[in-house]
C-alpha cells in the first residue's frame, strides 16, 4: 500500500501535466496550471523524505495534499492569469502498459459486393493538390508494386529474413483474394473519379482545415449490420502534408475503409499513430482482410511475423 501511495502521486503529476497540455491546446486563456504542476513536483520531491518518515507523519502530509489539490485545481480553472509551464515530454516513456493479447489486428466491418465488381473511389476537392500528389493518392489505392523489407528492421524476425510489403491496396487485395478462399468476395477493383457531388462508395474528402484533435485522417463508415454501405475518409490540412505523409495516411485510412480496425503493433500500418518507417501493407494486414471477408467479424488476427 505504501508503494502505491508513492506511485499514485507520480501518476497524479503525469495526469496533471497531460491536463495542462490539453488545456493549453484548447485555450491560451486558461492558465495557471503551473501552480498545480509546481505543487505536484514539490510533492514528488518530497517522496524520498516521505518514505523515510514514520507512518503517522506520512498520513498527516498526505491528508494535507489531499485537501489542497482540489482547491488548487479549482484555482487553476477559474483564473486566467499566470504562465504555463513548458509542455512536458510525457510521451517518452519509462512506464509500462501491457496488453494481454499480444500484437493483433481487429477485423471490423466488410463490403458485401458482387464478385468481380469494383468499388468507386471519389476524390473530392482534388483541385487543392497538384497532379503529382493526386497521383500519389491514386497509387496508394491502385498500385501492385511490392518491396521486400528485412524483418529485423520491423522487429518481426532475425536479420536476413524478409517479408513482402505492398505499396497499394489493389495489389494486396488481389493477392489476398488469390491466396485465401473467403465467404465474401474481397473487393480488389477500384474506379477512381474526381467529383464534387459525393457519389461513389468510398469518398476521400481533401480538406484544408486542421482537425482540432490533431488527427490527419478520419474514416467514417455507414453500415448495415456488419456490411459497409458507404465510407467517407477526410484528410485534414492536406496542403501541408508531404508526399510520403499523404501516401501513408491514404494507405492507413483505406485500411479502415476496407474494414480493418487498429493494430496493437507499433510497426504496423494500422497502428493508431503512425510510427513505423515502413508504412506499407503487410502480410499480416492481408491475413486480417482475408479473415474479415471470411466472416470472422469478431475476430482478431495475430501478427506472428
Amino acid at each position, binding site marked *: *500500500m505504501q508503494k502505491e501511495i508513492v506511485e499514485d502521486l507520480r501518476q*497524479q503529476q*503525469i*495526469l496533471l501535466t*497531460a491536463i495542462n497540455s490539453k488545456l493549453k491546446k*484548447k485555450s491560451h486563456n486558461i492558465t495557471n496550471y503551473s501552480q498545480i504542476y509546481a505543487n505536484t513536483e514539490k510533492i514528488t520531491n518530497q517522496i524520498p523524505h516521505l518514505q523515510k518518515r514514520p507512518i503517522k507523519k506520512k498520513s498527516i502530509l498526505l491528508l494535507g495534499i489531499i485537501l489542497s489539490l482540489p482547491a488548487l485545481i479549482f484555482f487553476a480553472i477559474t483564473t486566467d492569469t499566470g504562465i504555463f509551464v513548458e509542455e512536458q515530454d510525457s510521451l517518452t516513456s519509462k*512506464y509500462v502498459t501491457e496488453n*494481454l493479447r499480444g500484437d493483433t489486428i481487429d477485423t471490423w466491418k466488410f463490403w458485401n459486393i458482387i464478385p468481380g465488381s469494383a468499388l468507386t473511389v471519389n476524390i473530392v476537392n482534388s483541385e487543392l493538390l497538384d497532379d503529382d500528389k493526386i497521383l500519389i493518392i491514386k497509387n496508394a489505392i491502385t498500385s501492385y508494386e511490392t518491396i521486400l523489407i528485412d524483418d529485423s528492421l520491423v522487429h518481426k524476425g532475425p536479420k536476413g529474413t524478409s517479408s513482402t510489403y505492398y505499396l497499394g491496396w489493389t495489389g494486396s487485395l488481389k493477392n489476398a483474394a488469390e491466396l485465401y478462399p473467403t465467404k465474401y468476395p474481397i473487393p480488389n477493383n477500384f474506379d477512381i473519379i474526381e467529383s464534387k457531388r459525393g457519389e461513389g462508395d468510398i469518398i476521400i474528402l481533401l480538406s484544408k482545415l486542421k482537425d482540432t484533435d490533431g488527427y490527419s485522417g478520419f474514416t467514417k463508415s455507414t453500415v448495415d449490420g456488419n456490411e459497409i454501405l458507404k465510407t467517407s475518409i477526410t484528410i485534414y490540412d492536406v496542403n501541408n502534408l508531404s508526399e510520403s505523409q499523404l501516401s501513408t495516411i491514404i494507405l492507413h485510412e483505406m485500411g479502415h475503409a476496407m474494414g480493418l480496425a487498429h493494430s496493437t503493433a507499433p510497426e504496423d500500418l494500422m497502428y493508431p499513430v503512425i510510427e513505423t518507417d515502413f508504412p506499407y501493407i503487410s502480410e499480416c494486414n492481408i491475413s486480417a482482410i482475408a479473415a474479415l471477408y471470411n466472416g470472422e467479424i469478431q475476430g482478431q488476427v495475430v501478427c506472428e511475423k
Partner: protein
Amino acid sequence: MTLRENLNVIVIDDDYNTVEVFAEFLELSQVKVVGKGYDGKDGVHLYKQLKPDIVFLDVMMPDFDGFYALENIKKINPNALVVMITADLSTETEIKLENMKATSIVYKPFDIQQIIEIIDKLSLKVVKS
C-alpha cells in the same frame, strides 16, 4: 480514427485525488466519466447501476479490492471491459488478473498515450458488440 466520444466509463480507485485527476483527463480526452468509486464494492454497485462501456479499476484497495470488483463485475457481464490499474508488478498478481479475464493491465504510473490507445482499441469492441 476515434470513437472515444461514444464511450461511458467509470473510474474506481481508493485514492480520491487519483480518481479526480484521471476523470478530468478522460473528460478532456472526450471520454465520458459516468461514475466514480473508491473501493471494490462501489465498483460493482456502479457497474450494476450504470452498465459502463469500460471500467478503470485499481487493484490494491482496502476492504473490497480490485479482485473482488473484477470477479463480481464479470459475474454480472462476462464480457465486461475492465482495465486493471496497479502498482503491483508481481507475476502472481498478473497471472491472477489474467485468469480472472481482465481486459488489460496497466501499471502505475502509466503513460497517457498508452491509455488513450487502449481506450481507442476498446472503443472498437464497444461498437462491435
